[in-house]
């Protein structure tokens, strides 16, 4: 490889917000002088939607992949056609991250059926003899803090055999009483989900208690819409037969990239839920679901 191209943004975390300026450098390294037909930088942002095979036919799942929704796409010319000296050349750039009109800059999100991604692409066009060079670099967009104060919405819960739904033989269930609360289901994405859980009593020994973070992605299209819930992560908060009556902390950090503020648009929705899963020793599985609303403050 004679010539290599690299794009580097300045911030270590690569996190930018609406209205900020992306700055960084394009680095070209080469042993010889580089002849080129111009170097350009393109900022792209798009939402990729995929319909799950569950809701539509397999064929459609491939074909009907909804067209990517473009959020942002702009190009600037960095260098006019010409020559670059041999060695390492660094070309600094500044690229404003600004939405046109009243379009919204969605936050970066990597899900299963919905993906929101932003990239910075550098293209070096070259003469017919040499291949064009391209390098992309993902950067991360965080939406601006939402205005207004987040109202905490604490939830208390009690789980007993009686409160359960979808039980076939209620009589065969061991007796138990689990109480607890979530400090808020309205969550700031940078703050952990917190709360407490007390196993007041349980006939069977507890095997494990877990927090399951679930994303609920809804994609709408001409034929209707698809709604899918998949697990993001599963965090164990209790292992083994915990002490009765002793509050166990509920604590879960929202993973970066895989979560974003709850999002609702005309074409798609991204929502989050948490399941508290209690596994008893005789393999009884008790689940309690809580929808969450995430936001960025």
């Amino acid at each position, binding site marked *: 490889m004679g010539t290599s191209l690299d794009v580097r943004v300045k*911030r270590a975390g690569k996190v930018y917000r609406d209205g900020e300026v992306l700055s960084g450098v394009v680095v070209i390294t080469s042993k010889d002088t580089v002849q080129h037909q111009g170097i350009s930088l393109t900022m792209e942002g798009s939402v990729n939607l995929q319909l799950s095979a569950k809701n539509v036919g397999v064929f459609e799942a491939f074909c009907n992949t909804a067209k990517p929704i473009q959020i942002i796409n702009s190009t600037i010319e960095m260098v006019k056609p010409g020559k670059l000296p041999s060695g390492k050349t660094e070309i600094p750039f500044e690229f404003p991250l600004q939405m046109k009109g009243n379009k919204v800059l969605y936050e970066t999100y990597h*899900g299963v059926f919905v993906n929101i991604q932003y990239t910075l692409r550098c293209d070096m066009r070259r003469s017919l003899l040499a291949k064009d060079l391209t390098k992309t670099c993902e950067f991360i967009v965080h939406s601006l803090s939402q205005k207004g104060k987040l109202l905490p919405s604490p939830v208390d819960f009690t789980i007993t055999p009686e409160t359960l739904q979808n039980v076939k033989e209620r009589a065969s269930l061991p007796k138990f009483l689990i109480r607890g609360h979530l400090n808020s289901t309205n969550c700031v994405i940078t703050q952990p989900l917190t709360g407490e859980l007390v196993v007041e009593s349980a006939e069977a020994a507890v095997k494990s208690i877990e927090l399951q973070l679930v994303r609920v992605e809804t994609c709408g299209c001409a034929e209707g819409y698809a709604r899918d819930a998949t697990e993001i992560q599963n965090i164990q908060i*209790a292992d*083994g037969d915990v002490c009765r009556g002793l*509050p166990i902390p509920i604590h879960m950090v929202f993973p970066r990239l895989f979560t974003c503020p709850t999002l609702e648009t005309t074409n798609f929705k991204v929502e989050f839920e948490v399941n508290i899963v209690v596994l008893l020793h005789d393999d009884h599985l008790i689940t309690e679901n809580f929808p969450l609303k995430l936001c960025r403050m």
Partner: protein
Amino acid sequence: SYFLRHARSRNYVSESEVCKLESVPLDFGDYHPLKPITVTESKTKKMNRKGSTSSTSSSSSSSLMDPLSSVLDGTDPLSLFAAAADPVTAAPPTDGARRKRDKDESSAVGSDFEPWSSKRGEILARYTTTEKLSINLYMGSEKGKATTTGSAVSEKVRTRLEELDDLEEGSQKELLNLTQQDYMNRIEELNQSLKDAWSSDQKVKALKIVIQCSKLLSDTTVIQFYPSKFVLITDILDTFGKLVYERILSMCVDNRVPLPDNFSPECVNDTAKETCLNWFFKIASIRELIPRFYVEAAILKCNKFLSKMGISECLPRLTSMIRGIGDPLVAVYARAYLCRVGMEVAPQLKESLNKNFFDFLLTFKQIHGDTVQNQLVVQCVEIPLYLTLYSPAIDWILQCIAYHAPDVLLTEMMERCKKLGNNALLLNSVMSAFRAEFIAARSMDFIGMIKECDESGFPKHLLFRSLGLNLALADPPENDRLQILNEAWKVITKLKNPQDYINCAEVWVEYTCRHFTKREVNTVLADVIKHMTPDRAFEDAYPQLQSIIQKVITYIHDFALLFSVEKFLPFLDMFQKESVRVEVCKCIMESFIKHQQESTKDPVILNALLHICKTMHDSVNALTLEDEKRMLAALINGFIKMVSFGRDFEQQLSFYVEARSMFCNLEPVLVQLIHSVNQLAMETRRVMKGNHSRKTAAFVRACVAFCFITIPSLSSIFTRLNLYLHSGQVALANQCLSQADAFFKAAVSLVPEVPKMISIDGKMRPSDAFLLEFLCNFFSTLLVVPDHPEQGVLFLVRGLLNVIQDYTWEDNSDDKVRIYTNVLHLLSAMTQEAFIYHVDKVDSNDTLYGGDSKFLAEINKLSETVVSQILDHLKTLGKEETLKRQSQLALYFFNTILAHGDLRNNRLNQLSVNLWNLAQKHGFADTKTMVKTLEYIKRQSKQPEMSHFTDLALRLPLQSRT
């Protein structure tokens, strides 16, 4: 040709007057080489510099200034170095020291805090198992989940995810049937592969290894090994924590300037922060509770990079996170780890420590719950054993809490423990962790609580042991002391298992020795004997029994008292394994030598110690190392020196005779005995003021006989020679003339046996220097030895000369001639009217012969022979390669003549001139020496009756070397 030798006649008295050094009054402040050097630590460099400049530049003003003293009056280089090193030791660049300083600044953990590292070994040694262990590592366990993520995930993210999961694809391994040693090796391998992965930049793999390792801590099969497992695995976690911290710290290096020790988060650059944050996010997403807890705790320190409050926010969260751990044993060790990390990183955050303990108390009832009980049944582990598994963790937590804690807190902790049922376990930990003073002051309370404890729970003997340990360190109230001992011993003596018993008794012996009299100590020792004798139980308890002896002799320094403890010697009889017995004997003897102030004749002490020394002596065999022998001999010698029967010399001698028969295998002891007996003879002489009565004369002869028959049993030839000479001198001093003769004759006949090489400290060395020294010494003694009436004149001198003549000297050595030259000194001294020294009450030859001309003629004849031998030898040195030796010898001979010869005799005068020239002839003479010699002659010539030296000086040319 023969030269008549004329000895210069000497007046020793007047000569000594002249030669005596003029005594100069010494000003105390003056510099003197023997003045003790007091090293004063220099505080400033400036002062020293001043000192050194004055000594170099002001040579005109202070010509008396000694360059050495100028160093000594102020600062010497060493203390200067020490002073310079001071700031360095305060802040060396090593991480360990930095950490230490961090601690100092937070003024919480000092050197009085017993560190974890000192606990580790103990735990590893104590919690062992013979059962098979297994390690279960799922390096790719979450693979299935990764594939569920749809294809829409960006390529990069996916690969990254896969990397996380499948770095070692298919590396799920389960190692079964490992022995404990295998297990430890595996863990060590993991530790190593962690370091390897880290150094080869495989950070994700490193993290996985750590996660897998900490997962092992949730496994409680083979529960009796759990504490050791905890130790091994937390070692890995510590390694990991250190690696991460140092890595991030190294990212903060700005312009090659590392961060200060107590940096604030603002100084940390974004890249480092981002990396740090990444670690925390990664760890927060670990699925399982126990690995997530341990890994986060391991890198707790890294919070310092992110925010000031990071650690203080994290600790309480981690503390309450442990509540989710269901198994009480796993949970308590998790708490111990958190306390350990907390004490290291933020010792000022005491709240979390307390919280950990209170949380533990809240879950205490779990230990007796069904889940635990069922587990124990499955594993066939008894409750008392199970409970002891908690001790290291609880001890550690309490130790952290109790460190510099006020009494109020400790009391509160204790009260809380009291309230819980079945609290022996807690009680024990309280006793091991809290300050000894605190415990000692409440001893009676504790005894009460211990008594109330359930028999089936935590082993009681451990409780008493813990209490005993405290009482060995701190004193309980005066009034309670006896009652404490009674109460405790009542329980201890009932212990059935000899191991349990001895572990307990060992500790309480110290308390007993500390506060009570020999009666109580005796009772305790008797009880130990009673318990340990059946079935030879003592065989398994040597270390404890040894430590009991150690403690007894640490507290009882009065050996008369010690040996009057009736059971002390019977106690020693329990040490039936020889190596241990000798060890114990050594301890006792060391203590005796160290603490016995006055010499003793107490028959109890003597009997006991003789017995002990005999034991040590009898352990010596052909395989005993030299070092060991030397050590034993030194101990026995120390004892022999401390024995004195005062004026009862006969008893003293018979003691030495007995000792000789007892310790005949240790030569140094025999040597010591000979010296002691000689000393005894001289002591007798001193008491009798030189006039022996018939009885004392007989006694002294007995002493002499003792030496005479003991010396031949020694193997070292020079020891024998010197002892013969020495004993001969003693015999002479005691007017035992024929005995002295016998010694000297023995010495003379021994000389031919001196080998050319002797072994010194295991190396072969030529013996000539030693022989030369001995012979000179011998000749000096022979001056005063009177001739035997039945033997010829100068019988011994002739005998010795013959031996020297026949001795096969090293080729090309001049030793023989040097000795001959020295013999000339002797002969010239013998011609004097009065000898230079005498032995009191012994008539030497000067008195015996009274300057008889026949006697003098004999001497002259001898001299002639010797001189001719010397000259012959000088001639043989005429060859090229020996010229230097010739020159040296000639000068040596010249000096002898100068000192002892009468140079008014022409032939002698001529001989000396010839020697002078011979010395210079081939240019090997040292000009400086020659000049000095000449100066000396000139100076001498100014003295009365020495005027002929003036002429001599004129005849001695100085040759300048070209």
